[in-house]
């Protein structure tokens, strides 16, 4: 770990004012400290934002939810409002990491967690994300955990967050504050594909602070669900996961949103799947068609080829689970 300057922020303004090019905010620290110990993150200064008043969950005037950036993953998952109205989010959070990690991890930090690509986490390897232009060690390496959607010849690392996948399906908006003022960024526009610049993962400017995330209200009797598939039953990142937000009426799908985790270079919203579903009768055939459509753009490699089929299965099952009449 490289030596760094440490400060505690007293206000969002102070945090932003003191943040430079090589500053990192520290929230729960479960990603940042881990990567600093590996010398992958080498900030010159670290600003602790744990004292900021961004730890509340409130119902917004439009009936949606406003979630402070410092709300812990556990608190968000067990919040009564979230459990009742945004089940997909609660399920996604509870499927992630371990209770100890969730007690520390925050909403803002979770959105910005980094990939678990083995080669990104070790400075002895070539990695375009860590060191632009150096090459990608995963494409010729072991890439069972890597992405089949959204990859490029420069990077195929998965975005590992479960929470962000649920938020994609919920059409969340990220609210920020930076040197240039406040911004509201639809989550859909927040993440970037790796392309030839895998080091840029999102649209945040250096020193820009996430203050909160908002969720729009969902129409009455909308159902939502998160399903995560992996080798073991707990404490593992997704091999393939699906977040589904859906409303049916008389067996017909009025609207559906489908997002995928564990298979994309960013939390993956599949408009292709949604299009297949809209207005159709909810049945296995249409679910399968949606799954096929979602994975049509997939570019699998040797070790992760199975994820294409696994992702289809998880979509179908998540749709079944949300449309079954109990």
């Amino acid at each position, binding site marked *: 770990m490289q*030596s760094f300057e440490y400060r505690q922020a007293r206000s969002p303004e102070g945090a932003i004012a003191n943040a430079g090019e090589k500053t990192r905010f520290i929230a729960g620290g479960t990603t940042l400290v881990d990567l600093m110990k590996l010398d992958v993150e080498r900030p010159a200064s670290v600003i602790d934002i744990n004292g900021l008043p961004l730890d509340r969950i409130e119902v917004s005037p439009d009936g949606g939810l406003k979630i402070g950036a410092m709300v812990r993953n556990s608190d968000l998952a067990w919040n009564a409002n979230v459990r009742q109205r945004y089940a997909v989010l609660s399920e996604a959070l509870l499927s992630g990491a371990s209770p100890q990690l969730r007690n520390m991890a925050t909403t803002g930090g979770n959105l910005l967690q980094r990939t678990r690509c*083995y080669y990104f986490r070790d400075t002895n390897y070539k990695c375009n994300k860590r060191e632009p232009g150096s090459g990608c060690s995963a494409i010729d390496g072991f890439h069972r955990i890597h992405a089949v959607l959204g990859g490029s010849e420069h990077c195929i690392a998965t975005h590992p967050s479960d929470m962000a996948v649920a938020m994609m399906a919920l059409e969340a908006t990220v609210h920020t504050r930076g040197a240039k003022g406040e911004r509201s960024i639809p989550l859909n526009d927040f993440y970037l594909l790796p392309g030839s610049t895998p080091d840029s993962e999102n649209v945040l400017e250096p020193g820009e602070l996430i203050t909160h995330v908002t969720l729009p209200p969902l129409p009455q009797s909308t159902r939502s669900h998160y399903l995560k*598939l992996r*080798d073991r039953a707990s*404490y593992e990142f997704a091999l393939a996961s699906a977040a589904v937000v859906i409303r049916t009426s008389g067996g017909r799908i009025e609207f559906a949103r489908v997002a995928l985790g564990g298979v994309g270079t960013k939390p993956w919203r599949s408009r292709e799947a949604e299009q297949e579903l809209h207005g159709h009768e909810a049945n296995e055939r249409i679910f399968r068609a949606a799954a096929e459509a979602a994975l049509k753009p997939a570019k699998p490699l040797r070790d992760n*080829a199975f994820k294409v089929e696994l992702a289809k299965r*998880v979509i179908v099952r998540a749709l079944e689970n949300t449309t079954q009449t109990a």
Partner: protein
Amino acid sequence: MSTSIIGAAVGRVDGKLKTTGAARYAIDHPLDNVAYGAGVFSTIANGKIVRIDTAEAEKMPGVIDILHHGNADQLYRPAGQFEHSRASEARPPFEDDGVYYYGQFIAVVVANTLEQAQDAATRVKVTYAEEKPLVHLEDAPAPTGEPVANYSRGDAEAAFESAPIKIDETYITPVETHNPMEMHGTIAAWDGDKVTLYETTQGVVNHQQVMSEVLGLPLENVRVISPFCGSGFGGKLFPWPHSMVAALAARRVKRPVKVYVPRSMMFTTVGHRPYTKQRMRLGATADGKLVSIQHDVLSTTSKVDTYVEHCTSSTPMLYTCPNVKAVQHLVPLNVGTPTPMRGPGTVPGIFPLESAMDELAIRLNMDPLELRLRNYAEKDESLNLPFSGKHLREAYQIGAERFGWSKRNPKVASMRDGGLVLGWGMSTATWHAGRGGATVRVRLNADGTARASSATQDIGTGTYTVIAQVVSDKTGIPLNKIEVVLGDSSLPPGPTSGGSTATASVMPAVAGATNSVVNTLISIAQRTQGSPFYVKETQGGDPPSLKMTKGFIHAADKAPESGVPFHEILAMRRLSGIDGEAKTGPSEEMHKFSGHSFGSHFCEVTWDPGIARLRVSRWVTVMDAGRIINRKTATNQILGGVVMGIGMALLEETLYDPRNGKPLNNNYGDYLVSTNADVPAMECIFVEYPDLNLNEYGARGVGEIGLAGVASAITMAVYHATGVRVRKLPVRIEDLLGHV
């Protein structure tokens, strides 16, 4: 022998220390003026060090010294087999400029604080002349060396050729890494030419011996202290380089030095279970009688030592069969040196044998349990000796009944629970039952307490508790008044905690030492004026016979309370206490027998074909492992073995990058073992037949047998549920996904 405390479910006597954090593990020991050593580890797997540039690191704050092959004092090589000692690697650290595996100690930076040492260690620049490493067995040429195992009886090849039913399959077990919670670590502290090592080890006596060899010191100049061990699973049996590095560094900087192995290097420089590739050929008659077993094994070792994973060890004795051949060869790779891991040899070796038995049962359309009964070995045909107690038939029968095996429908995917397909599996478990030597001292103190001591150690299995139980059994002193002192090489030499032999080895010596001290106490009672048992020397005839029960010395034919509490006898002579010692060796009786424990596993998996989700849902295991001394710790060992086996079958695998030999999943997040959520309801039953040939209690060890056979029981259940036979562990989603 009163029996109440032997066999009871006794909680650990050290439980409170552990749960409150008061138990002191190796690098917890507070020493004044301690300095910290951080390793610099190789980032290539094969080649030479051309240059080590320490200029920048030396200038870092707090740095005291940096040791590497160019400047460190020479260590001697361990004498190993010639001294009946064992180190993990024949090559001591810093011996030369060679790099033989990724994660090898290249240098150690010693600094005032851990952070300073770690920071400076990242600034040591090493230039290598790199050569292409050989990391995977599959990339290696066929071995040409002498076989390391070569067993034969009858004519297995001819019998196979003419057998009406043949199974010929190849099975693979991956590298597994021990990963105990407590990482390896040492504090070395010198006083003149004497060194004390605070260690985490499964054998303080062997550790002391090896360190005296490599440091070139008289044995008594080395003291090894290891009161607690955050488990070892075999990985802490023999000394690893870090211990030698700590001793070297502490001698150089003239301060105590603490070195621990970071989690990432727990995958490189402290051992693993090697990769094995095993061809198993079974020949059988149409009614399921084995006529030939051929077991061909390739297992891997490193370039700096020769480690043999004895996969063929149970092959010649597990079933009755006239023609058996078992041959093993080694393949050296550019990886760290393998070492025993829970159930070494047998655990990976029984996987192909038990899997092939199931494949044979399917071919014969026979119940796999019935096939095993038809080939039941009544004696050990490899040694031509009777078993020292084998009750496997009963273990099969009880397990089958508890599990409900008779309700099994053998057809693939035929059994269901709602939307889930059920798969059932079973297997045979075995582990050898042995006993080594031990010396134990037991002291009865004037304050009414007892103390037992020996240079063995409790690696988390319950040795402290079992020793206290034996002392209590022999004296009636309650457990809370018995102190057990272990984990210090200056105590009377005790056994290594390995191979499930510690309990069987140490118990006879504890019993002997306790008997001896009680006898001394009785003679004191008889020779001391004022004692109610005083016998005048001149009187003829035998004195009335005395014994010790409930802490009282009393006439053998009267109630304990009629006698005198033992400490009052000591007080009559104003003694602080008295000692008894016993030294025992291996059991002579056992030469006439083949010693093995046996058991059966029955398991159920659930398979959700829609999402390719496989989970273990039920487990029954029945063990024939002699007399159980402590039901709690024994059950804990067996079920812990099953949990580890679930990981072996479905999750565990160390992934090495073929380009540089790096274990890629080198942390607790990425190296998967079973979590609580992966562990089903489990039941463990003991059929208790004391093995009196082994020791007076009839106790055997139970540390490893729980793991043997688990993986094949699961792959059998996987086949039953999915129709897919997985012969390469672990079973992965992608193996099953295509088959619904």
